[in-house]
C-alpha cells in the first residue's frame, strides 16, 4: 500500500522480504512453497529452529539487496538524572578510537524543521539548559562509522559519567495526562434503564485541579462543567452510601499498589535505516507491533522538514518480532532510528538497544495506586456498591497513559454486576520512564486489587468465594460499568463450576491440614474478565488459491509469537479446506487494489462526518491498526477469513456444482452452507466428495473467484457491507472487497451498501471480553518465606480456538508472566529504577522454569458455545487471575493480606515471624 501522509511523503510498508536470496519474497514467506516441514506446527516453525534471519535485529546492510555493504552504528544516549539542569555532553573521556563521526542533539534537530508526532509530545532530545523531562530521556544520538568505535564507546559510556548537570531544580511538573470519572447507577429493576451511565451521558472529566495537579473530584459548581457535575453528583451519593453503610451492609475500604514492570521481550528494540539522498528515499527495517502507525509517525515528523531532511518516500520493512507484549506498540524507537538514518545520508545505520538501554528507554507497565471501597449486603451476599480511585504513574511521556487509565477504570468491577459504581482515575506525569501498553493493560492492576478485595469480603462475611462470585457475576445481557452489555458470550457460570469442581479447590482444607511441619499451605482462587479490542480495530487480508489448490495468505497483522500466521492458515482452512503454504504477515503494501482512503480520527469522528465520508466506497474509518489488545485471533484473522468465505462461495462452490452437474434451478445450488471439509475434501450429503485440487482447477478453468482481498473494521462491532457478485449479492462483516477471477488481476468492487458501527459506540468501555479463572495451591517454607506453587489450574474461554496448541502455550506463558508480576518482577520508580541505565536481568528477575509448576499446571480451554462462535481474544486475560489467586493463596497460608506487588519471600517471612 502506498499512501501520502503529511507533507506529501509517499509511504509504503512491506513485510520485510529479506536477505541473501534472489527470490526473497518466496523465501521470506512461511513456511514457503516446497519447503519441507513437519505436518503439524507453526508456519514459522522451521525458520525459527534453523536460525533464519527473521527479526529486525538480524539484519545488516549487507543483507539488503541494493544497499551499500557496510553497516554503520548509532548509539542513543539517555539521561540518568531528571532533577538537575542538563548542561551538555562531556565526551572527552572517549578514546580516539571510540569517537563518533556525528552527534545529533536537541540543537541539531531544532534547525531542520522536525515536528514531534502528537502521540510522542515532548522533546525528542533534552535541550541544553533545561531539566530532563524524565529519566531515560534521550540527550543525543551518536553516529559511528565503524562497529568497533561504536562498541568501545557503548561500553565506556555505560560505565562512565558523560553528561554535565548544573543546578538542582527538582523534577519537572506537568499536568496530568488525563482524568476521568466513570459512574453508573442502575435502575430499580434489571430491566429498567440506568439512572446514569457513561453510555447515556458520555465520559466525564473533572473541571478543576489542585495546585499539586491532582484533579478535584468533588462536585463544584461550574457553568462549563455541567456534565461533570451531573455525574459527580451521582458518584458522590455512592461515596456517601459507602461512608455510612446501612445496617446489614459490609463495607471494606482498602488500598493496593502495583509496581512498574518491564515487558522484557527477549529481543531488544533494534532497526536499520538507510537514506538515499539522490532518490530521497528512506528505507527502514523495523520490528514493531504497529507498523502503520510507525510509518505515519515518521512521515509526520519529517513532513515539514527542510529539503535535505524530507524524504520523497519512506519504505518501511517490518519483521517478525522477538516478543512484544504491548511494549512494541507505539514506541518512540522508530523516530530515533529515522533520525540516525537522516543524519547519515548514504550510509546504512543500525540502532540497537542493549538490555541496559532497553530497561532505560523501553515502554513500561504503569504502576498503580488504588483505593477500593465495596459494599456488600450481608444477607444476600450481593455487591451493593463499589467505588475506586486509581492513580497511574505514566512516566515521562503520555503515550498510552490515558487509554490504560480508561481501560482500568471501565474494567474495575471485573466479572461482576454492580448496580452502583463510581470510579475515578488520573494518569500522572512523573519523571519515571514512560509507561504505555503492556499485556493486561490496566486490568492486571485493577483486578488484582478487586479480586483480593473480594476474597477478603468472602472471608469476612463469610461466604464461599465461588458462591459469592456466582451470586454477583454479570450474566449475559446485563450491563457493564459503562452501561452497555457485552456483545459476546459471557461464561462466568461455567468458569465458576469448573473452578468449584477442581481437586485443587475441593481439597483445599485437606491439603492445608496435612501440611508438613515448617510448611504453610494455602489455596487461592480468582477470576478475571478482560476486554479485547481497542474500539478501532482493522484487518487486511488476501486469500488466493492457484489451479493446483495451493493457498496463499497475506495479512497486515504482526507475528510477535502469538501465532498469527498459523491462526490465519487454520481459520482460512476452515473455509476452503487447505492449509496455506505461503503466509505473509506484517504486510500493508499488497492491498493496493482496495484503494482505501481514510479521514479523521476513528475515535473522535462525528456521526455526521462518518455518514458523509462513507458515501465514498473506498473510505474506511481506519486502514490498519496495531497487533495488540489480544486481537490476533479475533481481528487479525477476520479479513482473511472473510476473503476465504468469498473464495469458497464464488469460486470453489460453483466449481463443485459444475463438477457435480447440478443445474441452476436445483435448490442445492443455494445450500453451500451445508457443505463441509474433511481435510482437503469437500463433503456434501448425497453427492460424491470432491478434492480441493479438483475444485481449484475447475474454479480457475471456469473463471470463478480464486482470490479475494478484504478490509474489516470494528468499533465494538464489525462494519457490514454488501457487494454484487456473480451469483448474488454478498453481505459480510467487511467494508471493502476486491476479487480475482481465474488467474486475472484483483478488481475492487464498490460496496452496494455499508453500515459502519455508530460513532457513539466510542463511549463503550468494552463490549468484547473473555474470562479466565485460576485456582492454585502454594507451599511456604516457614523458615525462609520461600513460596512454591504446588499445583495450579486455569480455565479460559476464547470462543473458537484457532490453534489450540498456541492458545495453550499463551496460557502457560501468561501464567509465568503472572507469577513474575506477583512474586518476582519490580522496577522501583525514579533514580533507583531503570531510568538510571544500570538495570539488567539478574537484578530484574523474571520467572524461570524452576519458579513454575511445570508438571502441575493444568490449563483447560472451554470449547466454543456453538460452532458459530467466533474466536475471542485470550492472551491477556490468562495472566490476570494468576496474580490475585496467588495473593489469596498466600493469605490462606499465612493469614496476611499483602496490599502491594511483588510479594517477596522476605515480605512473607516478615509476616509469619
Amino acid at each position, binding site marked *: 500500500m502506498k499512501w501520502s501522509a503529511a507533507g506529501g511523503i509517499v509511504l509504503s510498508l512491506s513485510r520485510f522480504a529479506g536477505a541473501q536470496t534472489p527470490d526473497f519474497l518466496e523465501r521470506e514467506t512461511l513456511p514457503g512453497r516446497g519447503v519441507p516441514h513437519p505436518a503439524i506446527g507453526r508456519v514459522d516453525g522451521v525458520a525459527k529452529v534453523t536460525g533464519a534471519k527473521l527479526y529486525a535485529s538480524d539484519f545488516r546492510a549487507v543483507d539488503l539487496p541494493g544497499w551499500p555493504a557496510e553497516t554503520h552504528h548509532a548509539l542513543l544516549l539517555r539521561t*540518568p538524572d531528571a532533577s538537575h539542569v542538563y548542561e551538555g555532553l*562531556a565526551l*572527552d*573521556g572517549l578514546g580516539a578510537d571510540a569517537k563518533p563521526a556525528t552527534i545529533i542533539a536537541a540543537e541539531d534537530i531544532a534547525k531542520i524543521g522536525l515536528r514531534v508526532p502528537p502521540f510522542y509530545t515532548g522533546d525528542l532530545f533534552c535541550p541544553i539548559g533545561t531539566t530532563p523531562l524524565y529519566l531515560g530521556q534521550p540527550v543525543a544520538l551518536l553516529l559511528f562509522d565503524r562497529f568497533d568505535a561504536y562498541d568501545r564507546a557503548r561500553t565506556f559510556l555505560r*560505565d*562512565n*559519567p558523560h553528561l554535565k548537570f548544573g543546578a538542582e531544580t527538582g523534577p519537572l511538573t506537568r499536568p496530568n495526562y488525563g482524568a476521568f470519572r466513570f459512574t453508573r447507577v442502575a435502575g430499580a429493576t434489571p430491566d429498567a434503564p440506568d439512572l446514569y451511565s457513561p453510555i447515556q451521558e458520555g465520559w466525564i472529566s473533572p473541571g478543576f485541579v489542585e495546585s499539586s495537579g491532582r484533579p478535584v473530584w468533588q462536585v463544584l459548581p461550574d457553568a462549563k462543567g455541567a456534565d461533570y457535575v451531573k455525574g459527580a453528583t451521582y458518584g458522590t451519593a455512592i461515596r456517601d452510601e459507602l461512608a455510612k453503610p446501612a445496617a446489614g451492609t459490609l463495607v471494606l475500604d482498602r488500598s493496593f499498589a502495583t509496581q512498574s514492570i518491564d515487558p522484557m521481550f527477549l529481543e531488544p528494540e533494534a532497526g536499520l535505516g538507510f537514506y538515499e539522498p539522490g532518490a530521497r528515499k528512506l528505507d527502514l527495517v523495523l520490528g514493531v507491533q504497529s507498523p502503520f502507525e510507525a510509518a505515519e509517525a515518521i512521515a509526520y515528523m519529517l513532513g515539514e522538514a527542510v529539503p535535505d531532511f524530507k524524504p520523497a518516500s519512506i519504505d518501511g520493512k517490518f519483521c517478525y518480532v522477538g516478543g512484544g507484549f504491548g511494549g512494541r506498540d507505539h514506541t518512540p524507537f522508530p523516530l530515533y532510528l529515522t533520525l540516525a538514518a537522516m543524519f547519515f545520508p548514504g550510509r546504512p545505520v543500525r540502532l540497537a538497544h542493549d538490555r541496559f538501554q532497553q530497561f532505560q528507554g523501553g515502554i513500561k507497565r504503569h504502576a498503580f495506586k488504588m483505593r477500593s471501597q465495596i459494599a456488600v449486603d450481608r444477607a444476600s451476599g450481593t455487591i451493593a456498591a463499589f467505588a475506586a480511585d486509581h492513580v497511574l504513574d505514566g512516566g515521562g511521556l503520555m503515550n498510552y497513559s490515558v487509554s490504560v487509565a480508561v481501560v482500568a477504570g471501565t474494567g474495575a468491577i471485573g466479572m461482576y454486576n454492580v448496580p452502583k459504581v463510581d470510579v475515578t482515575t488520573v494518569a500522572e506525569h512523573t519523571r519515571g520512564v514512560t509507561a504505555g501498553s503492556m499485556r493486561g493493560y490496566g486490568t492486571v492492576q485493577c483486578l488484582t486489587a478487586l479480586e483480593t478485595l473480594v476474597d477478603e469480603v468472602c472471608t469476612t462475611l463469610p461466604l464461599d468465594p465461588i458462591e459469592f462470585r456466582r451470586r454477583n457475576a454479570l450474566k449475559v445481557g446485563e450491563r457493564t460499568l459503562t452501561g452497555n452489555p457485552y456483545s459476546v458470550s459471557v461464561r462466568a457460570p461455567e468458569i465458576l463450576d469448573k473452578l468449584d469442581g477442581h481437586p485443587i479447590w475441593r481439597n483445599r482444607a485437606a491439603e492445608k491440614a496435612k501440611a508438613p511441619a515448617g510448611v504453610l499451605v494455602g489455596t487461592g482462587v480468582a477470576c478475571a474478565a478482560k476486554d479485547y479490542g481497542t474500539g478501532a480495530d482493522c484487518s487486511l487480508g488476501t486469500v488466493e488459491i492457484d489451479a493446483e489448490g495451493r493457498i496463499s495468505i497475506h495479512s497486515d497483522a504482526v507475528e510477535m509469537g502469538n501465532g498469527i500466521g498459523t491462526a490465519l492458515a487454520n481459520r482460512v482452512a476452515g473455509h476452503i479446506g487447505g492449509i496455506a503454504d505461503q503466509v505473509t504477515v506484517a504486510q500493508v503494501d499488497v492491498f493496493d487494489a482496495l484503494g482505501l482512503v481514510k479521514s479523521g480520527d476513528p475515535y473522535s469522528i462525528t456521526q455526521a462526518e462518518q455518514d458523509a465520508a462513507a458515501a465514498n466506497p473506498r473510505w474506511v474509518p481506519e486502514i490498519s491498526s496495531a497487533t495488540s489488545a489480544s486481537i490476533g485471533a479475533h481481528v487479525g484473522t477476520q479479513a482473511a477469513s472473510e476473503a476465504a468465505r468469498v473464495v469458497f462461495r464464488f469460486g470453489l462452490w460453483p466449481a463443485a456444482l459444475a463438477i457435480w452437474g447440478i443445474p441452476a434451478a436445483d435448490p442445492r445450488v443455494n445450500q453451500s452452507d451445508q457443505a463441509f471439509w474433511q481435510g482437503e475434501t469437500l463433503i456434501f450429503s448425497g453427492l460424491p466428495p470432491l478434492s480441493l485440487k479438483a475444485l481449484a482447477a475447475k474454479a480457475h478453468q471456469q473463471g470463478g473467484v480464486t482470490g479475494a482481498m478484504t478490509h474489516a473494521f470494528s468499533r465494538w462491532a464489525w462494519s457490514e457491507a454488501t457487494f454484487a457478485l456473480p451469483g448474488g449479492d454478498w453481505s459480510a462483516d467487511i467494508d471493502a472487497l476486491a476479487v480475482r477471477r481465474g488467474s486475472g488481476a484483483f478488481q475492487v468492487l464498490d460496496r452496494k451498501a455499508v453500515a459502519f458501527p455508530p460513532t457513539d459506540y466510542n463511549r463503550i468501555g468494552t463490549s468484547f471480553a473473555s474470562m479466565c479463572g485460576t485456582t492454585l495451591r502454594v507451599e511456604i517454607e516457614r523458615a525462609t518465606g520461600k513460596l512454591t506453587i504446588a499445583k495450579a489450574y486455569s480455565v479460559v474461554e476464547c470462543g473458537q480456538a484457532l490453534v489450540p496448541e498456541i492458545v495453550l502455550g499463551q496460557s502457560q506463558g501468561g501464567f509465568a508472566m503472572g507469577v513474575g508480576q506477583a512474586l518476582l518482577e519490580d522496577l522501583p520508580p525514579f533514580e533507583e529504577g531503570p531510568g*538510571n541505565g*544500570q538495570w539488567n536481568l539478574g*537484578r530484574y528477575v523474571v520467572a524461570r522454569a524452576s519458579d513454575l509448576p511445570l508438571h502441575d499446571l493444568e490449563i483447560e480451554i472451554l470449547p466454543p458455545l456453538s460452532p458459530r462462535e467466533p474466536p475471542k481474544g485470550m492472551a491477556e486475560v490468562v495472566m490476570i487471575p494468576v496474580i490475585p489467586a496467588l495473593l489469596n493463596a498466600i493469605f490462606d497460608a499465612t493469614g496476611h493480606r499483602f496490599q502491594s506487588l511483588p510479594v517477596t519471600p522476605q515480605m512473607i517471612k516478615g509476616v509469619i515471624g
Partner: protein
Amino acid sequence: MMVREWRLPALMMAAVLASAAATGFSGAGISATGAGTLAAPADFAHIADPKARSAAYFTELGKVLTNPRCTNCHPATERPRQGDEARLHQPPVFRGLDGFGLDSMRCGSCHRRANFDPARMPGHEAWHLAPPEMAWEGKTVSQICEQIKDPKRNGNRTLADLIEHIGKDTLVGWAWHPGPGRTPVPGTQAQAGALVEAWAESGAACP
C-alpha cells in the same frame, strides 16, 4: 550505603565530573580503587591489650570478609549470590559436587579466565564456590573469626596458610579488582594480608 555507591553516578555534580574528567574518567565511583580503605597494623599500636589489639586486626579484616565480594561465593546455601546487593545468583546455579557447579551449568561456562569488562562479567581461572563449611554469608565477624581458625572449617589451613591465602591467592585477589559494576573490597590485598599476618602473630584473637 557503600553497596550502592557505584550506582550513584557522579553525573549530577559538575565538580565531581570535572575531577573525573581530569583523570580520564577512570573513576566514576565504579571501578578499581578508592571505594573504602583498610587500616594498617600500625594503626592499632595504640591498643595496649595484645588480645584486644589482635581482635581489632580481625575486626578491620572483617570489612573484607563480610563484603559481598567475599560472601557471595561463601554462601550459606548451595546457591551463590551476586552483585553489590548480594541478590541470589541469576541464572540459578548451584555448588555441585566439586564447588564448580552442576554438570549442566559449570561456573566456567561464563566465568572465564579473567574479567570481561565489556559485559561486566567477572572471571578467574579457578572461579568456584567455597565449600559449605566455609560459608560466611550472614555471619558476624566474630563467627567468621572462629570459623577461619578452625581447620575443619577453613580448608585445613594453618594460620600461615591463611596469610598466604588472603594475602596472595589470586582468586581472593579478584575481590580488589572486580571490574565495572561491582564495588571492590576495601584497601589492597597486600594490606589485607598484612592484617592477617599481624592478627596471626598477635595470637589470632577473635573479636
